[in-house]
């Protein structure tokens, strides 16, 4: 079998290549400056969010999906408050809150205490986020199930055309993972550093962006915190950046959001004919 490129290695091995960007002047200030994320709906599709965690500071709403063999689609959804079973979603929500303090966070719980059916519930969570007009959804998880390639691709395209930006963590495992592999999403891997708004574009996709994800102090279960490394923690940094820019510029489409992120990347330089 082949070994997939080390996506994070493209960002933190001292070899970030320059990429030519559109001539956006002062793009970082234009995109992020002064923004709090106010008015932006952010879905955290994960293991749930502990709304009472000090680093999270509350959630606006949420839904939990559960497998149910008797249900028409194999699962049921319960809208309303719920906890975080393992701390993963709380960690992501805490990162988003630290960068976009006024964003409206919704917890979309698709991971439960049973590992079966992860792909179907992941699909349901993305679909819910599109139907509820989330501006951006964070997916620090993915599926390697080949059977989910088509369904997740379809709902990712729906998200793209209806204005929900999907930000997906890449996975440091061999072989493709979905939906992080799709061009319609923003895929993210870890990058060293302490700057929450640091961003780099990878000229060798499919993983396109690198953000802070090495030795990050994150919220955890039982109101705790830990220092952890993983692409799971890189994606929420970009999700928060998207929240900042969509708060200032609500008209931005997913296509434009990605172009702005590209231009705002640390390794973006003016094109040769600029």
């Amino acid at each position: 079998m082949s070994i997939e490129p080390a996506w994070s290695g493209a960002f933190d091995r001292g070899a970030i290549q320059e990429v030519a960007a559109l001539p956006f002047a002062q793009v970082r200030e234009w995109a992020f400056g002064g923004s709090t994320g106010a008015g932006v709906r952010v879905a955290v599709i994960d293991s749930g969010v502990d709304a009472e965690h000090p680093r999270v500071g509350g959630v606006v709403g949420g839904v939990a999906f559960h497998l149910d063999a008797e249900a028409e689609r194999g699962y049921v959804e319960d809208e309303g408050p719920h906890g975080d079973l393992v701390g993963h979603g709380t960690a992501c929500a805490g990162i988003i809150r630290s960068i976009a303090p006024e964003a409206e966070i919704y917890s979309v719980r698709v991971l439960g205490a049973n590992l079966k059916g992860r792909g179907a519930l992941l699909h349901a969570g993305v679909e819910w986020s599109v139907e509820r007009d989330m501006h951006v959804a964070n997916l620090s998880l993915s599926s390697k199930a080949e059977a989910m390639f088509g369904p997740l691709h379809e709902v990712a395209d729906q998200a793209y055309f209806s204005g929900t930006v999907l930000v997906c963590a890449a996975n440091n495992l061999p072989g493709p993972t979905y939906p992080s592999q799709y061009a319609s999403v923003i895929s993210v891997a870890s990058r060293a550093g302490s700057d929450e708004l640091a961003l780099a574009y990878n000229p060798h996709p499919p993983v396109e962006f690198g953000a802070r994800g090495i030795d990050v102090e994150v919220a955890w279960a039982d109101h705790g915190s830990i220092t952890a490394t993983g692409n799971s923690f890189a994606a929420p940094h970009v999700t928060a950046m998207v929240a900042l820019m969509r708060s200032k510029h609500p008209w931005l489409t997913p296509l434009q959001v990605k172009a702005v992120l590209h231009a705002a990347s640390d390794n973006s330089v003016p094109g040769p004919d600029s």
Partner: protein
Amino acid sequence: MPTPRGLRCAWGWAVAIATGQDPALGRSVEAVRRLFAAAACSVALVDDDGETLRFVASDGAGADAIVGVTIPVSRGIAGWAAMSGQPISVRDVQTDARFARDVAESTNYVPSSILAAPMMTTEGEVMGVTSVLDPSVEEASDWTLQVLGTLASQMAMLLAGGHGPSTPSPTEALGRDVLRVVEAWQSGQPGHAGPSGTRAPGAR
């Protein structure tokens, strides 16, 4: 959703491993422990009910005590990797409320740091988790996760394929990939071109 064939296959193999009938996985966890110069390495597999992780192989500190132990998939760093499907590295796990301290103490070895990576079936379901305790790797990058994620996937293939020691080809393939990963890791050290840096500009 039906239980994946690979998962059933792995479980059957896990029983064989736990009862000492097949040492192939034991050799693999020993190799991973040595690669990371770690205190211990273990493999836990998802039970048929999808709700429990059972430690089926281990090498190093506390190895004898951990094999056979079961924990819910929502517990510990191993459970975190199993649920999320994402590799993770945690420093100072003793401050982590989710760390399964009681499990660690029962083995008479409580680690400071843990690497954990999910093991996937060929169908893409989480089969189990490979954990490395107290690796002697200080590099501030997630290359350790890249390496462990690759090795965990290889061990999953070994298990799902149901190969035993009498069919050495998967083990040989594992050895080759270990070597490639280590070489890629070494070539990516500062002062050397990393894997991405070895590609031609514009290459996909």
